[in-house]
């Protein structure tokens, strides 16, 4: 007679334990319920956004948000800053990563440390130091400057904290580059620049996409550093939302936040798609 064993859980089948399942569920709820509530109540037909009583469905706060000129200006500023900061961070990050990967020079560990310093420095300190720096330079988002040059100091501030992240991601990608590939291209007649363009850049592409995505999202929702470096006419979306909250919390803020969330989600989705497609090649 064959023996029958009770269906015992195998190792690593944690998802089958109800205790662990409930912990997982609670953690997920804790993380995402506030965001879902935020989105849901952007459609609430109530005058107060903080009001958690459902008063019927409306999209009027989206209309209001889109017609709020200050809010839209802030939104435009945010996007402009994020795009400029992303492009600059990826270019600077790539250069830094290649420098640190390829060359040996005196005080290299020191340079490596300095590059990653903005990652570890408390953001508030960076904000204060940048604010002091720009005011000492007399470079405070002049109203007289034409757009987008009035945003230049915020852009510079964003680049300083975005590019170390880009450099880090790109450098990690560089580690997996086979130097023989570079030599093979040289051997086949390519110049240094052609090697970079034809061989190194295609290899780096997933790293560049990841670095760009990271920089873009960091810049998009940055509050502290922007708060310290923005002038009255150079408000970004996070700063604007903050000032609106200080007056009164209306569902309009929920709507503006929802738009921001949607934007990052769409971007992340496309970036991840590009990356997974590229990884299949390697």
């Amino acid at each position, binding site marked *: 007679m064959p023996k029958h064993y009770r269906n015992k859980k195998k190792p690593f089948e944690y998802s089958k334990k109800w205790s662990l399942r409930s912990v997982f569920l609670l953690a997920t709820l804790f993380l995402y319920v506030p965001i879902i509530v935020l989105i849901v109540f952007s459609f609430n037909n109530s005058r107060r956004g903080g009001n958690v009583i459902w008063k019927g469905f409306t999209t009027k706060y989206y209309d209001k948000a889109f017609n709020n000129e200050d809010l839209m200006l802030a939104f435009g500023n945010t996007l402009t800053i994020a795009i400029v900061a992303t492009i600059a961070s990826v270019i600077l990050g790539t250069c830094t990563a290649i420098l640190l990967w390829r060359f040996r020079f005196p005080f290299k560990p020191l340079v490596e440390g300095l590059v990653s310093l903005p990652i570890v420095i408390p953001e508030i300190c960076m904000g204060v130091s940048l604010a002091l720096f720009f005011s000492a330079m007399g470079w405070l988002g002049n109203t007289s400057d034409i757009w987008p040059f009035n945003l230049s100091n915020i852009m510079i501030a964003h680049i300083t904290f975005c590019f170390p992240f880009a450099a880090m991601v790109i450098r990690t990608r560089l580690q997996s580059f086979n130097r023989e590939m570079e*030599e*093979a291209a040289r*051997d*086949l*007649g*390519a110049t240094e620049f052609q090697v970079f363009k*034809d061989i190194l850049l295609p290899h780096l592409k997933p790293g560049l996409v990841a670095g760009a995505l990271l920089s873009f999202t960091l810049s998009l929702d940055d509050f502290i550093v922007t708060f310290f470096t923005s002038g009255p006419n150079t408000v970004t979306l996070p700063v604007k939302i903050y000032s609106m909250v200080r007056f009164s919390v209306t569902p309009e803020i929920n709507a503006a936040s929802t738009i921001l969330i949607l934007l990052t989600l769409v971007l992340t989705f496309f970036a991840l798609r590009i990356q997974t497609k590229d990884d299949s090649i390697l």
Partner: protein
Amino acid sequence: MSDNPIVSIRNLSKHFGRFKALDDVSLDIHAGEIFALLGPSGCGKSTLLRILSGFETPTSGDVLLDNKDLVPLKPNKRPINMVFQSYAVFPHMSVEDNVAYGLKMEGVAKAEIKTRVEEALEQVHLAQFGKRKPHQLSGGQRQRVALARVLVKKPRLLLLDEPLSALDAKLRDAMRLELVKLQEAVGITFVIVTHDQAEAMAIADRIAVLNEGRLRQVASPSQLYQKPVDAFVADFVGTIHCFDIDSAAQEGDAMRVNSALLGTVKLPSDAVAHSFDSAHSSSAESVVAIRPEHIHVAAQQPLTADVALLGSLGDIAFQGQHSIVEIMLDGRASLTAVTTNSDAQALHAAGTGSPVWAHWSGSDMLLLPKDAKGAFS
């Protein structure tokens, strides 16, 4: 073989700090031959290859290609191409684009690129795989892509860095033959770097043996095996048993050698390496040596043998076509002998540990310096 070498290497040295990767190497490579650079790892063979391809600059010495100085030319300006050990196939390009890359860099017209790429892929039997990406190919196929990629450029010289080391045994044997056939078909001079003596012997027309940055010998495979210049080369290109000598002296046509283990043996003059001279006749400088295939094994003491040693039977290893018999010599050392399978079976019947005689003829022996300074070809 033509007398005019395609590549002339003169007194080439490459130092990395205090380490001498190459030390005063001079050799010629002839047009149309397969030339192997053979040596243990760290012997300088890869450095020599990288100097030829332009990725290293020599510390001193000259490298001439068709009598023109090669050293100042950058790697992308040399009519020399290389198949890398890792193949270095570009993963983001299709097989076709990989093969076309070198021609594109040359600025060859598109129509010509197309026909030449097709031709090259045909040569390496990859005509059907042009549109594939490298990750859809096997290791052997990737190597063919790397080969096609350099053949299509019709270089003066083709360098191959350990071309067969990453392939499995069966594929390696097939690829050996194919490389030789390919070389005959295209007529390009091949320079192959390898640490595998069997591979070098099987493929190359001539072999240069390097050790510790110095050139030990340049010779054809058979010459290298039968007339090694010193004990290092003899040992590196195949198994050989060496015995220390006490003295060696010319006696008429022959050489009289005294050895503690072997006694007095007379060697005919052609058994004496031509690198051997009176300076090597002291005991510390030279050895007498015998290859396993020249050692006979017998249960009874042979009546006529120049050298006969009594030992006990050790392990017998069946190799397929032949067997290898181990003979333990009095705790001091062991010998291996190559025998027929039937002889090995007869010995096996006698049992391990039974007394056996290893014997051979003096004319099969070699008198070799331990280390021949300088190069002999």
